[in-house]
């Protein structure tokens, strides 16, 4: 059983023989403030490994949840084995034969392997679990997966990560799943365990089971995948590409490239101060990024290009003091900042718009003005008493200058669209004396019109002398907005150049090169 069943994988992608088991047509799913899925097409055949590619926020997770019965699509059609379906809940999807293995395996650690495999549908007689029967069936399933050595009675807690993954798959098979969705299954595995995972996947597909495989690692997709569908901004930008033969650049540009022409503000030809505002020297956090040095001058926009997992967000948070570095220094205006102290960074004039707007930046139930003044309300206060009138006036001024819609500063932030929420976060740092603004994916989940406005806001800030350090996985955004570009890959800076000297292809090559060689941690 250790011999991989190669033939199916060897077949060219076009010749995937199986019938179409799953077909999604124009699936749309919206949440307050964001269109998570905006017309997704997907076709999966029996016995194939269908890879799903896309950046964070492209809609992969939402798509999985639609298939798993967690979310209901607003419009569009989901066809499962030839019939339109709408799953009322995850149990219904399970019963229909769609099993999902989430990245954080949803196993109960203190139950046995067999109990986990049959959780929720244990074989029963008059309310009593048929433990012997359950153990036998579990053993049979584990045998099918090529892991007969795992004892069904073993506690899941005692298994290594790879073993837990096998148990998740055993659970899928216990439901007679016809389609198994795997969300970044290799992320929790060591390198040599990935080969074993692939062997299991081949066993499954040989039995006619379809697999939707999600991963950021290009070489895995090359090895295990049959066809690839690429998502961007909730849309299918490419469907059913052959996994083996499609050039990496083509795939990545579908993931990150522009689907719409954005309007970038002109770079004004102003002289910049020669004094460095921010100097980062040899900053290191083990496992995240190594020996990063960079500078930002007043009035300059510096863009960092890099994929998810390149360490860019971690780097931003470390510069901001939200994470403590293992080595290296951060200096503002020549003064070294206390490591791991947001307070020190803010006092020195830094502000940050973090990657996850809702969970890291906003008090969603609080009014706009309180979110705008979150970092500055103490400055308006007298003897500890807040000056609400002044706060509202300042927030209104920011709302006007950023064209916040609506401009009613008493509204809860929850009711704003993604773009306007982002304006609130950026606007927070326009109050007070922010000298350096750190922007982590400032336009994620922001619609086209608001994007152009945000770009203008960022450029205006720079014109006023604020230094900006920008992270984006959208290469055109970095190239279009920044004065100087740094390319980050696997936790290291690999290139630095003025934006005018780089083009999209060059940056994409640099960004991707690493993941082709050894796979960036996702």
């Amino acid at each position, binding site marked *: 059983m250790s011999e991989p069943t190669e033939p199916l994988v060897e077949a060219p992608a076009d010749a995937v023989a199986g019938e179409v088991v799953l077909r999604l047509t124009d699936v749309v799913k919206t949440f307050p403030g964001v269109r998570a899925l905006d017309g997704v097409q997907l076709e999966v055949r029996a016995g194939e490994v269908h890879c799903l590619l896309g950046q964070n926020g492209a809609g992969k997770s939402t798509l999985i949840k639609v298939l798993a019965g967690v979310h209901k699509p607003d419009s569009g059609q989901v066809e499962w084995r030839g019939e339109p379906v709408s799953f009322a809940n995850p149990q219904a999807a399970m019963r229909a034969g769609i099993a999902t293995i989430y990245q954080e395996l949803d196993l109960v650690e203190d139950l046995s392997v067999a109990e986990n495999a049959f959780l929720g549908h244990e074989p029963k007689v008059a309310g009593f679990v048929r433990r012997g029967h359950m153990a036998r069936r579990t053993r049979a399933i584990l045998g099918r997966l090529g892991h007969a050595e795992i004892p069904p009675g073993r506690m899941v807690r005692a298994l290594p990560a790879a073993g837990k993954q096998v148990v998740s798959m055993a659970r899928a098979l216990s439901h007679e799943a016809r389609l198994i969705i795997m969300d970044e299954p290799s992320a929790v595995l060591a390198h040599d365990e990935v080969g074993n995972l692939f062997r299991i996947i081949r066993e499954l597909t040989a039995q006619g089971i379809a697999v939707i495989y999600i991963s950021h690692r290009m070489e895995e997709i090359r090895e295990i995948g049959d066809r690839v569908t690429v998502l961007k901004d909730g849309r299918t930008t490419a469907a059913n590409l052959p996994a083996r033969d499609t050039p990496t650049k083509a795939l990545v540009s579908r993931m990150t490239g522009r689907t719409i022409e954005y309007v970038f*503000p*002109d770079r004004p030809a102003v002289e910049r101060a020669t004094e460095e505002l921010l100097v980062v020297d040899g900053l290191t956090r083990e496992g995240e990024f190594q020996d990063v040095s960079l500078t930002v001058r007043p009035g300059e926009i510096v863009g960092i290009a890099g994929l998810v997992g390149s360490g860019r967000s971690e780097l931003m948070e470390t510069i901001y003091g939200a994470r403590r570095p293992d080595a290296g220094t951060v200096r503002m205006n020549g003064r070294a900042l206390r490591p791991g102290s947001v307070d020190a960074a803010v006092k020195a004039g830094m502000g940050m718009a973090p990657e996850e707007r809702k*969970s890291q930046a906003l008090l969603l*139930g609080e009014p706009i003005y309180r979110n705008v003044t979150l970092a500055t309300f103490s400055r308006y206060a007298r003897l*500890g008493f807040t000056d609400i009138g002044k706060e509202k006036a300042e927030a209104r001024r920011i709302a006007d200058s950023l*064209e916040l*819609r609506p401009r009613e*500063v008493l509204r809860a932030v929850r009711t704003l669209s993604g773009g306007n929420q982002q304006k609130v976060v950026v606007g927070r740092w326009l109050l007070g004396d922010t000298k350096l603004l750190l922007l982590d994916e400032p336009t994620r989940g922001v619609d*086209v019109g608001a994007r152009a406005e945000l770009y203008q806001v960022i450029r205006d800030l720079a014109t006023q002398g604020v230094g900006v350090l920008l992270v984006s996985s959208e290469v055109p955004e970095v190239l279009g907005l920044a004065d100087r570009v740094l390319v980050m890959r696997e936790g290291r800076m690999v290139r630095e150049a003025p934006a005018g000297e780089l083009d999209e292809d060059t940056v994409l090559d640099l960004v991707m090169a690493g993941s082709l060689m050894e796979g960036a941690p996702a």
Partner: protein
Amino acid sequence: MSEDAPTSTATSERSAGLPAQSPPVDPAVTHATAGKTAAPRLSWWSGDGGEGAKRNLGLIGVLVALVVIGIATRPDLYSDSSWVWGNFLTILKLASVVGVVTVGMTFVIIGGGIDLSVGAIIAIAGVWSTTVATQNFGAGGMIFTALVVGLSVGLINGLLISYGKLVPFIATLAMLVAARGLAAEISNKQTQVSDNDFINGIAANSLLGIPLLVYILAAVVIGGWVLLNRTTFGRRTVAVGGNPEAARLAGINVKRHTVLLYALSGLCCGIAAIMLTSQATSAQAAMANLYELDAIAAAIIGGTLLSGGRGTIVGSLLGVLIFSTITNLFAINGLSTEAQNMVKGGIIVAAVLIQQVQFGSLGKFLRRNRATTA
């Protein structure tokens, strides 16, 4: 604050702050969520916004209903106007000690925590302030001791939670056990009688016909309201409880603030310890038993979100008053405390259920509104 109603959301207006070459904006896209809602108004008294004020009106409705039940069941008593006034003061007096504790508890819960040790802190502060040695220092020494002991124990709670990274539930549960143990140790399991006339007089005396205990409650409630709604401390409390990560990334010292919240709760317990000692003219290790449950229940009935980030002092006060009115209602009808506890339990469940229904329908309404305007 009458200028609170910006009316124009037109996209064509450009403000002076931005240069004129800003890119064109597609109004259909960016205007989608503007909706057609009017600007919510913020009156000077509703620091927490309209939502909390509406909920508090509901609680007042419940209070009125309880009084109506009282009138219906005992019309004989309610026909006597002097009895009605006296009974009103009785209810307030009943609410005073738990009310003070609930104010502190409200801050802790809004800040994202919980304090199970309040009853135990009252016990240790009460016992410590009535030892023979402390009583020798007179009323000032006793009050000082109670306040400092309460504050210190709260401080320990906060330090364990902030810097020891203990879960609030565990840390304060441990304190509940330990503080009562220490109180029993100090008092040698005896009831310590207070010989101090000033202390004993707090509960016995009135000013302008209103018991002094009610003044203390009023002072703590007003102080708490101002602290929550008008100071940076209150703003930080809401931020820390509502989204600790966002608060931290905005430069707020979340750990230090958490310590201060538990210290505040401890201080409130110190005040409550003096009030309770005065009422009983004594203190013992078993005093203020299960006050944590009353305080948490009152805060939750008052609309404080157990996960933090939302709550009002007025709501918590109304929660306490509802409880003491129920107790009073059962007392004047001569019913057992057992039946009373069952009703209280039911009211806690009902209050939370009603809040969930309100929030569910609010969310649905917003989604529908968005769907029609998008």
